[in-house]
């Protein structure tokens, strides 16, 4: 999912645990996953099952899947996938880990368990190095989102980011990691762009997996970038690890900010990220031109959010995109184009009506 494999492979490798890097999620991953999944299960289940199969094909003997109570169907992915893979005749050990309940200590314990008798300090250093990579990648990605909307040669930022991921992943120590980060942030900043343009700002929100895995949402961020739109999202893997694994202990979370905002419309958790999605609409109406809401087909929490959002009394258009293996690229392109046209015309009218001298760039 997204770049999440980078910190994990880094941490494991630092401890001498051999890692099978999953092949990038592709149509083959999806076909494998969909073939062996229950038909109406959500897309993230199918894609992660496909990832697991591809890892097993490459010789992995241990699989790690997060699990936990009080989530959504995600909470039982690990159990069901273990059963399906066993039925398919694969031999492996499934490590189910409740990251959400046990936080960072759980991760440390898990890695220590896999690393045999590595000293705790070494385990902590490995995790920190992995997380440092993740944080820098996310920072680069935020820059990519900005550059993409302005670049004169379309595709330049995406190409640079692809190289950056490999470079960051390959960095053996903190010094070369910093070096790689500096190289690529400079390269991104050097991409010639239209300085005068004030691109539309569109927030991407919705279910965690389909927001963060570009394959699952048909690279909606790149498509919007091609249309000259700057994308923002509050979900980044590094934020999530920070908030979910560490800061929860102190009770200061981005999530709570979203929950507070959503409360007049939805007063409780509905599983998954449904509560947060409603909160996003309340919180971001003022500073975004529009919101793209991503939901896996049959995702109950997001269906609830989608049905509550029209009642949220803020003036911001929301385009809900339902992601599954039947999604057509042409249909998505039409909707995105129409959405961007709509936002552009809205903004130009807003500008025309605003008192002279007032600008909101």
């Amino acid at each position, binding site marked *: 999912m997204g770049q999440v494999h980078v910190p994990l492979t880094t941490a494991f490798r630092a401890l001498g645990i051999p890692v099978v890097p999953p092949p990038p999620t592709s149509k083959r991953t999806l076909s494998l996953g969909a073939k062996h999944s229950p038909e109406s299960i959500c897309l993230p289940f199918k894609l992660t099952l496909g990832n697991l199969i591809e890892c097993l094909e490459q010789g992995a003997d241990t699989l790690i899947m997060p699990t936990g109570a009080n989530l959504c169907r995600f909470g039982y992915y690990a159990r069901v996938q273990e059963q399906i893979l066993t039925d398919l005749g694969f031999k492996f050990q499934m490590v189910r880990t409740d990251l959400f309940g046990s936080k960072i200590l759980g991760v440390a314990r898990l890695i220590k368990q896999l690393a045999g008798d590595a000293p705790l300090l070494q385990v902590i250093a490995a995790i920190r190095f992995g997380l440092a990579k993740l944080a820098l990648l996310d920072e680069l990605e935020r820059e990519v989102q900005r550059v993409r909307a302005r670049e004169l040669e379309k595709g330049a930022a995406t190409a640079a980011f692809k190289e950056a991921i490999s470079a960051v992943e390959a960095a053996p120590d903190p010094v070369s990691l910093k070096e790689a980060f500096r190289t690529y942030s400079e390269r991104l900043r050097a991409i010639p762009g239209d300085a005068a343009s004030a691109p539309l700002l569109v927030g991407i929100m919705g279910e965690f997996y389909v927001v963060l895995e570009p394959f699952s949402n048909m690279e909606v961020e790149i498509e919007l970038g091609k249309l000259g739109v700057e994308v923002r999202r509050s979900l980044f893997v590094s934020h999530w690890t920070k908030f979910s694994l560490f800061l929860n202990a102190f009770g200061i979370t981005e999530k709570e900010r979203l929950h507070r905002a959503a409360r007049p419309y939805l007063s409780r958790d509905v599983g998954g990220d449904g509560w947060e999605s409603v909160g996003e609409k309340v919180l971001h109406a003022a500073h975004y031109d529009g919101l793209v809401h991503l939901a896996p087909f049959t995702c109950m929490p997001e269906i609830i959010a989608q049905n509550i959002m029209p009642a949220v009394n803020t003036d911001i258009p929301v385009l809900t995109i339902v992601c599954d293996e*039947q999604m057509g690229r042409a249909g998505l392109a039409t909707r995105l184009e129409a959405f961007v*046209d709509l936002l552009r015309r809205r903004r130009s009218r807003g500008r025309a009506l605003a008192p002279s001298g007032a600008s909101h760039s």
Partner: protein
Amino acid sequence: MDIYLGIDVGSVTTKLAALDREANLVASLYIRTQGKPVLMVQAGLKDMAQRLPPDSRIAGVGTTGSARYLAGVITGADVVKNEITAHAVAALHYVPQVQTVMEIGGQDSKIIILREGVAVDFAMNTVCAAGTGSFLDQQASRLGIKIEDFGPTALKSHTPVRIAGRCTVFAESDMVHKQQMGHGLEDILYGLCEAMVRNYINNIGMGKEILPPVVFQGGVAFNQGIVRAFEKELGTKLIIPPHHELMGAIGAALLAQEEMEDAHKATKFKGLGVSESLYETTSFDCKACANICEIATIKADGQVLARWGGRCDMWERAAEKKREGAPT
């Protein structure tokens, strides 16, 4: 006389509309796409050449519809726009105060919400084609009536039956069931109209504030049964513009005019003689990565015009380079 040409190549029908500078409809064409968009655009242009006044000069071309890129490449369009924008622009032209546009075409249906002349929200059917023109077509032929007679027959109904309209498969079995029970044809047809309208309001119109004036356009607006069912459900009269089935093409022509007059550019239109060229479309699987995208190639007289269909733009760029390098 300067003419702006709009071409709307949809899943089921292809529409052409020629407007003059004052946006009067000078000539139009409405033909079935028959799954052959390239041939139909060529045939359409050929036919159009006969219909246009002799002193016509094409000053701009816009394309829309699901084959808008294909049509844009072969005609040399100045504007290639999605259907939502095209329909909104056309509706605003005929009814400047419009607040809601409902459009039902062959395989999609949409709603556009406008306020003070600007589209502020829209929705399209996402995961299901129930309640579109193709389904009505199919049911009419199954019941042995012409699609033109569907509306007038449905209007004769006094006690419409309730049909399950959520999904075409269930709607069809429910209709068969009602027939076997002995209900009359007109009651079943009007029942289907009501089911389609319910489905539209609940799915496409979910959470949208449908305020009058409501403009209803697209091929399905021909169907009087659907129109009446909508008016009953919404409690307001629908405005059906004079050329409701051409609205996409008219919108594309208006957008072309806007673009050309703003930019003072010469049109890229290749001329009505496009119909003489030999077009060829082929496809292949790209093996550059594990995604194995299906790439379509469009050739004119043996030369590559465009390639598309990949997750990345490798082939699109290759085709562009080839075109730039080719002698003209």
